[in-house]
């Protein structure tokens, strides 16, 4: 148990009739990870999180939080906190009273930390007001506060910046970064690529209930390879040169002008540069270009079937690491 990862999900399935909301999901979140759980709306992120927190029963598979099954007892949630979708509170109670309630349900020890967590989420001045008067951003922050009452080792946050204004999003991301710096493992469900790119070291991308990729962001980018953007004085001639050049592949037109291609290695790019100069199509621009996480996300979630090979490959890499 002591060495068990914060989250270990194996073969997780949730079916509603014929529809598989979550279909054979495997995940491992290691201590210290800020793990991005990515997917478009309806991909199965929230359903997965609900099963991880014991709110709904899986049709198949298993979830272990620090080695314990949340379906058996809430004891599995010891050291675990978070919320799915928006955090919710009793609107007729004050923010502080809501925290007192949740602290009491946790055994009462969190009560001593109420002022501290209110300070952390910058809600101390509004704590006596009824929650029905809170803005969405304040409720999100109160949600984080209620999670922190549990002194969690693992935080599960479901799209915590959704509905926040830019300043609120910035503050929430900073808060998550601060919590991660304190050593808290975070599972962050999101569909916002910049957020995940900014905060997470590892990701799983889920599409139609299935994991399309699980691994590090670096490995995900490496899998996509590097493409090059080429602009010359004569793009038609440049294209013919590219097609005849060994090691230059996947040539396509770029917008608004120029070409995009992939190269098997940097020598092939150097050779192309020389060939273009000799052919009478001098180079105006030749720049390497890495795919953004957003592009990779769309490739994985909109293009083709989920790549199980990719998942396996990424796991192999992790196992070696």
């Amino acid at each position, binding site marked *: 148990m002591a060495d068990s990862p914060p989250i270990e999900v194996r073969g997780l399935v949730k079916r509603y009739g014929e529809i598989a909301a979550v279909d054979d999901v495997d995940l491992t979140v290691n201590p210290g990870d800020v793990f991005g759980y990515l997917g478009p709306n309806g991909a199965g992120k929230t359903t997965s999180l609900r099963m991880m927190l014991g*709110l*709904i029963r899986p049709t198949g598979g298993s979830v272990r939080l620090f080695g314990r099954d949340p379906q058996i007892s*809430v004891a599995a949630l010891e050291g675990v906190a978070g919320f799915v979708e928006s955090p919710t509170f009793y609107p*007729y109670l004050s923010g502080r009273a809501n925290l007192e*309630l949740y602290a009491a*349900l946790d055994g009462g020890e969190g009560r001593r930390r109420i002022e501290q967590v209110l300070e952390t989420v910058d809600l101390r001045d509004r704590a006596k007001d009824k929650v029905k008067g809170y803005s969405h951003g304040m409720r999100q922050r109160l949600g984080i506060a209620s999670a922190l009452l549990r002194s969690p080792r693992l935080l599960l946050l479901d799209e915590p910046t959704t509905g926040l204004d830019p300043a609120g999003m910035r503050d929430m991301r900073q808060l998550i970064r601060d919590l991660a710096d304190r050593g808290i493992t975070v599972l962050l469900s999101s569909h916002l690529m910049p957020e995940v790119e900014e905060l997470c070291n590892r990701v799983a991308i889920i599409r139609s209930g299935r994991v399309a990729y699980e691994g590090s962001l670096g490995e995900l980018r490496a899998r996509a390879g590097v493409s090059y953007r080429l602009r010359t004085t004569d793009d038609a001639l440049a294209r013919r040169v590219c097609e005849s050049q060994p090691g230059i592949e996947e040539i396509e037109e770029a917008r608004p002008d120029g070409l995009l291609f992939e190269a098997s290695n940097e020598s092939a790019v150097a050779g192309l540069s020389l060939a273009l100069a000799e052919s009478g199509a001098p180079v105006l621009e030749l720049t390497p270009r890495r795919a953004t996480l957003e592009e990779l996300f769309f490739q994985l979630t909109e293009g083709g079937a989920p790549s199980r090979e990719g998942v396996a490959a990424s796991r192999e890499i992790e196992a070696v690491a």
Partner: protein
Amino acid sequence: MRHGVLTVYRWELRKLRAQKRTYLGLGAAAAVPIIFVIALVTGGGQPNDVAFGRYVHETGLAVPLVLLLFGSIWLFPLITALVAGDIVACEDRNATLKMLLTRSVERHQVFAGKALATTTYAVLAIAIAGAVATGAGILASGFNPVTTLSGTVVSAPRGLFLVGASLLVYLLPILAIACIGLLLSTVFRNSGAAIVGTLMFSLLLQLVAILPGLGGLHPYLLSTQFSAWQGLLRTPTDWDPILRSIWVCAAYGIPALTGAALVFLRRDVAES
């Protein structure tokens, strides 16, 4: 584990104290007897067609007994349903169940705490109605001996004891109604539907009671149990309706409570 139930129970009471519907129900339990007594004093008439109705000007102790008879039709079932039908459904309305169930209390502890809070509210409602009716009745008609249904007269202190005992017996069908409200609240996940459903169920049973040809069913209807306390107001005490009320109310209440618990323990908390 017990600590968990007590914690939930204490917080359910605090939540009830913070909600208007609680005061609406308890306020009605206090206001109706006062209105009744004011009508008696100012109108001068009396409800001759119900038991103890003819004695309301002779002793204030008759007032709570008449109120129990009138209140059984819809007043007390409605007051009970106001909280019983809401206590689980409100968690769906506020989407707070997902927050509750990811803290350190088990589902059965949450359910037990809610059931206890519902019971407390129902007991409080009947106690308030009984106390206010007795107090207002005594102010209006005096603390005088009561004539029982057998025609014997009992002293005022003995009459007061019998009123208290009657309120306790009256609680049996009220608690059965509360269990049904809890079931509908858990199943419907909608306060309005659960409250109306509970009241409709109560009214339906009273309708069955007046349908011709169904006399054999009467002893086993929940509505009939609202009159069981009258056994205490006979000389000697008639225990049969009281004993029957215990098992008939249990026959309605326990399956409803068990069903509610099973649904609550097994349900997916899937919607926000």
